[in-house]
């Protein structure tokens, strides 16, 4: 699958929640798009990713 434009080989099914942690993000500080569609936060622990998926994770930092 593709994560933020980079190839990532998926060896076993993985939820978006696990991917977020694996990439070093905090779940309460991100927005996630899966194949061009926003993923509701309530589905992070439910949606299983496959190798044909394209995921974009955006992390937000403090200050404003």
């Amino acid at each position, binding site marked *: 699958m593709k994560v933020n434009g980079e190839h990532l080989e998926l060896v076993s099914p993985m939820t978006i929640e696990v991917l977020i942690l694996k990439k070093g993000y*905090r779940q*309460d*500080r*991100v*927005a996630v*798009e899966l194949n*061009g569609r*926003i993923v*509701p*936060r309530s589905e992070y622990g439910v949606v299983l990713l496959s190798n044909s998926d394209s995921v*974009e994770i*955006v*992390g*937000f*930092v*403090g*200050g*404003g």
Partner: protein
Amino acid sequence: MTLPSKEELENSLSTRHSPKVHNAIKNAKIGIAGMGGLGSNIAMMLARAGVSSLVIADHDVVDISNINRQNYYLEQIGKAKTDASEELLKAVNPYIAIVKHCVKLDPSNIPGIFGGCDIVCEAFDVPSEKAMFINTMLEECPGIKIVAGSGMAGFGRSNEIRTEKLFADLYLCGDGIDMEEAEGGLMSPRVNICAGHMANTVIALLMKGDV
């Protein structure tokens, strides 16, 4: 002196910016969530540029610690930021329509407050609140473009603040570096550079539909 009439002000903007640009900017309704360092400065830039309809939201009051970067004055300390901003924006354009919401934004009230806007700026400072707002808008109000800020603390490195289109309806301005990691904390110049990116993105989206 007598203040210029609405027509005089519009003619001045139209002459400066061209009628095509002025009309596109004037007819937009822009939302701003959070009236701190980013939001208060974005609002002023958009008012000067000729946006005639703003929806602003913040639950906080002006504090002495805000004056280093937020578009407020010492005499406004203690006032609701929404009221203080309205005063200043109306000093630049007395005919601007401002809908104020002095409330804490959460997923239950965000769609009702910002659902009618053309473009909404996310201008909070706490990262989890940024994520909450952006996710709520993208989930509940599809089709409204979001311009968000992330990373503008410290000094120098002006050119590291950039604008990127990340999702179909999400544009992110900043350098991606948390305020805890930047020496000097939040300071006016870089906060204004980021606010400038955000206001400029709003205008580009109104004109071209993209950046």
